[in-house]
């Protein structure tokens, strides 16, 4: 770059074509993430090479034009005066006091805005009525209010199957209908017998029980995620299987507890082996390297 006298324009590096190649590489990388790994690898390689060339182009020149080191050494010593003048004390005190007042006002407000969502998240146990409503080895769609004081926003649906007695205790499969992709409600893959629908009155408001035959498992209408009858992912974008509810039998009634996430279910019915994990949000991996991206879950 030649230096012209009186040229006060900003000295910019000359135009370079490397960013174009870098952009092509990034696009290739992103497309590759969607369609195939080799394309992504090629894209990453292109982006790396061109990014390196670009960075070298941009950073290479100014260092050549940097001032010689002796100039820095020749800078004058800072003028020694009063070590801590009054004006600087007042300046610091004003800023410090302002910061304290600001913090006193801001922190409680910010805490009030953000923290309640993480605290006092009490789980509501839900009474689904007597277990005699659930015939053995028959699926039911059960719709209930998780929080009876706010039924408008807490209506939930679970798929419930009575597996019969296991060691003398009734065993149930209770699968949440929240898709493990982005949380749409999954639908049963089979006929719903709406005319046999039944409403059970409980302490928790009305519970709607509808017989269903999910022969093809469960299918999400949003993006096509599909699951088998045990909630294992078969196809589509979900990152794991369907979540399940803890359950308890109290005085012959089925009580739902907390949700938990499931990695894999081996076998089926009452002898199924369920790999439980802490409840994860939809779309969050619970196993494999991707699960390292979600090391800590907020309280549910």
């Amino acid at each position, binding site marked *: 770059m030649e230096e012209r006298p009186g040229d006060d324009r900003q000295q910019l590096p000359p135009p370079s074509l490397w960013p174009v190649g870098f952009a092509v590489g990034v696009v290739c990388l992103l497309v590759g993430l969607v369609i195939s790994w080799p394309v992504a690898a090629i894209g990453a390689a292109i982006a790396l090479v061109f990014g390196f060339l670009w960075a070298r182009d941009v950073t290479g020149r100014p260092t050549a034009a940097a001032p010689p080191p002796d100039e820095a050494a020749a800078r004058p010593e800072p003028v020694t005066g009063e070590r801590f003048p009054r004006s600087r004390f007042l300046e610091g005190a004003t800023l410090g006091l302002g910061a304290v007042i600001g913090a006193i006002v801001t922190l409680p407000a910010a805490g009030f805005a953000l923290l309640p969502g*993480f605290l006092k998240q009490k789980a509501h146990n839900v009474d689904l009525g007597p277990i005699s409503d659930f015939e053995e080895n028959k699926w039911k769609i059960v719709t209930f209010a998780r929080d009876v004081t706010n039924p408008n926003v807490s209506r939930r649906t679970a798929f419930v199957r009575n597996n019969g007695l296991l060691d003398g205790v009734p065993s149930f499969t209770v699968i949440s209908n929240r898709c493990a992709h982005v949380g749409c409600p999954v639908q049963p893959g089979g006929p719903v017998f709406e005319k046999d629908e039944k409403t059970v009155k409980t302490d928790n408001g009305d519970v709607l029980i509808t017989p269903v035959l999910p022969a093809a498992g469960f299918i999400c209408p949003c993006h096509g995620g599909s699951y088998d009858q045990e909630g294992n992912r078969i196809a589509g974008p979900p990152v794991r299987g369907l979540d399940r509810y803890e359950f308890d039998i109290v005085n012959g009634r089925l009580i739902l507890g907390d949700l938990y996430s499931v990695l894999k279910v081996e076998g089926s019915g009452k002898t199924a082996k369920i790999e439980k994990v802490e409840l994860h949000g939809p779309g969050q991996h619970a196993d494999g390297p991707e699960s390292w991206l979600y090391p800590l879950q907020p309280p549910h």
Partner: protein
Amino acid sequence: MAATKSERGDKLQAAVMYPLDWLEERSGIVGGIRYFLFRNVPRDSSWWHTLGSATLTAFLVQLVTGVILAMYYKPSPAEAHSSIEHIQHDLWGGWLVRGMHRWGASVFIILMFMHMGRVFLFGAYKYPRELNWIVGVLILATGLFEGLTGYLLPFDQTAYWATVVAVNINGTAPFVGPYLATVLRGGAEIGPDTLARFYSIHMLLVPGALIALIGLHLYLVVRLGITSPPWSKEAAGVEPDDEPPPARSGLVQPGPRAAGVRRRPTE
């Protein structure tokens, strides 16, 4: 006769100017407005340069209609949808104002992208205007967030499930995702507080941020001036008359201007 007329004219002028002068002397606001509205712009700036003002107008429409909608809207899970129905079907003009807000939202977003495209294609993001591009991107992001939060407010099935999906997508962000989703919902699940939370974000928090960002954006526009279009001969330092008139890219024949009619008056 003529003398009395001009005397009356002088008096009238004085009557009009007096309050303006009073204001100007005490605030400088008249001069400020004149500086803002009558500043110089490149001679060859075109209709493309009006997309930014159009976006601002769309935003102002959203502000006004939003304030009025807030007079009738009730942000509680039990009442939200019925209050929207009330606005839409019972109140005089409600359908119009809500329609303006609803469709105006899309217009605002579309105009933002068109303005962004103009700035990109004209190279108007280059030195010294890079910072204004960055501010513009922040305006785009906050504008899209307005769209996200506003979408929940009708509180019908579409609104509810779209928000479920949108919040869960935020929840898949690495490390902070689960916490971000909890903050957005105000809990582990969409609950009774989520709607009011989104309403507050939609009508107070984000518009406040948008107004501040738009103010900064305009300040930088006025400070730095606007760019000439890339085809500007003036900006290229070429005298307009030394060059042949710009060729028109007619499909069949060049237009009359290219055939020799000068576009600008000779200086």
